[in-house]
């Protein structure tokens, strides 16, 4: 899972820190860093790029709320859910809606590693454990 050697990881971490403003990644900066890296091709650039990609992927995951429901949500409902989530996690939060019939009913929201499970399936599983 870990890419690059120690040196490359350290360099990637330094670059990543320089791409951040206000606790968030600045996509413009990331893009220009990548362009520079790909143009200059410094030693170990592949490892560094892979490490940066990992970080970007993680950042995206943390800034995207994956909302799954048993049935597709209506547009109005989707907007409402997005508004509620943005109020909680910041205005730049992206939302991705999926359907999963196994949930039976209710919603399951995942932001980063945090999961809010209000689905019937989750409640049944919780009840099974507490019994």
């Amino acid at each position: 899972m870990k890419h690059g050697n120690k040196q490359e990881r350290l360099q990637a971490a330094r670059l990543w820190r320089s791409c951040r403003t206000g606790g968030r990644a600045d996509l413009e900066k990331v893009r220009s860093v990548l362009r520079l890296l790909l143009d200059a091709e410094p030693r170990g650039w592949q490892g560094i790029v892979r490490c940066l990609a990992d970080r970007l992927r993680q950042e995206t995951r943390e800034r995207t709320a994956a909302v799954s429901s048993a049935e597709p949500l209506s547009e109005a409902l989707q907007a409402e859910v997005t508004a509620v989530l943005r109020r909680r996690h910041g205005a730049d939060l992206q939302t991705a809606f999926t359907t999963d019939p196994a949930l039976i009913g209710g919603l399951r929201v995942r932001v980063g590693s945090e999961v809010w499970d209000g689905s019937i399936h989750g409640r049944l599983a919780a009840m099974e454990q507490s019994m």
Partner: protein
Amino acid sequence: MNDILQDIEAKLTGLASAPQRQQTGVVREIGDGVVRIEGLSGIMSGEMLDFGDGVAGLAMNLDEADVGALVLGSFQSVREGREVRATGRLLSVPVGKAMLGRVVDVLGRPLDGKGPVATEEFSPIERAAPGIMSRQPVSEPVQTGIMAVDALIPIGRGQRELIIGDRSTGKTTVCLDAILHQAELNRAAETRGDKEHRPLYSVYVAVGQKQSSVARVVNTLEEHGAMPYTVVVVAGASDSATSQYLAPFTGTAIGEWFRDHGQDALVVYDDLSKHAVAYRQVSLLLKRPSGREAYPGDVFYLHSRLLERSARVTKEAGGGSLTALPVIETQAGDISAYIPTNVISITDGQLFLESDLFYQGVRPAISVGLSVSRVGSSAQIKAMKQVAGKIKLELAQYRELAAFSQFGSDLDAKTQAQLERGRRIVELFKQPQHEAVPVAMQVVLLWAVQNGGFDGVPPAKTTEFRGRLATWLAQNQAGLLEKIRQEKVLSEALLAEVKKAVESFKQLQG
């Protein structure tokens, strides 16, 4: 019926009110019971993880982007991409009096087929040791029933005494004898209805041992009726290194319950060298930097934080005690190796068992010169102090003389007498396994050997003579023994009685 329905209703309404908030992660890499998990950003160190299907894990390494964790138990069903949930709990095991008589695994799940453990209480396996203010000095003895130990290297309640020696020198036997004697004493006090007696419960932790050895230990405990006072925690040689690494902590958590509830417990870690090896494996798999002999840098802290939890605590802090008997196996008698020196420096003394002595027939093969108890005589009853005081010195003198006398043949009478007495003391301390000698009997025997009771008996016949004397005392002088046990000190009157008893036995023998 109705209350069950109400219960279900209550549970359902409680569940419906709020969505479950959970920390989750995804397994990215797994091998040899060690997993790397992506996500789980808000997790605690030492937190229990849930892999689903009843597979639990333990978070060990908290890195920037991922978490290194250990799978507890079987890791065959854990695959890459599987979701892992944080439980918000530290790794805990069931504790309490209901654990007595049970054989459990590292998570406290029964292995003995006697059904679930009837306890509601749980305790985290990693806890801080009691501080300075909540400790009390060790002053009450643990009667092991082994004469050499009780007389020369006494162990007190709350002490940590290391049992160290080569393979098959009787380390486990010493521990087992101590456990068996505690059970004997507990049962005797129960039948007497003695409220004064503080029962001592035992926890036996088997780390990395052959299942057959563990079965033999459990069998011995059952045969001697010691199981009702004992908990056995097993992480066998075929269990994962994770289980072997955690088993001593489980045993300590179980023992701590007694300490914190005003009772006394004895915990045996058999053995900590295998524990260190298991921890080394886990650490290397987690890619922690290795140090001397490839052990991780915190292998000292691993054992010190474990053994520091054994203590005698004040009334405010619970008023109980936890005594630890860690076992270390040495290679070719080398007590200056890495792990042995570590544990020697942590403990309050050590019992060194020598294979040379063992093969000479001195069993238990305790090397009196190299064994010490740093708590010492404050953990002996007064009567024992009175008779055992000089023995260690006499033994040391005997060994010195014995080394000299190998060269010279003509010895004066005084030296010869000293040699003979020394030989007799060595013979006296030979003791078959699982045959404990009660403390009162020890006092009389030790008094006899120092005051001419064994004079005229050839050293080779000492063991036999001692056996006869012990049987005779138990049959005819039970009152005297009981008096010593209760008064705990040899007063003038009692001393006269002891003298009379020994003399009348000698007369009987002619």
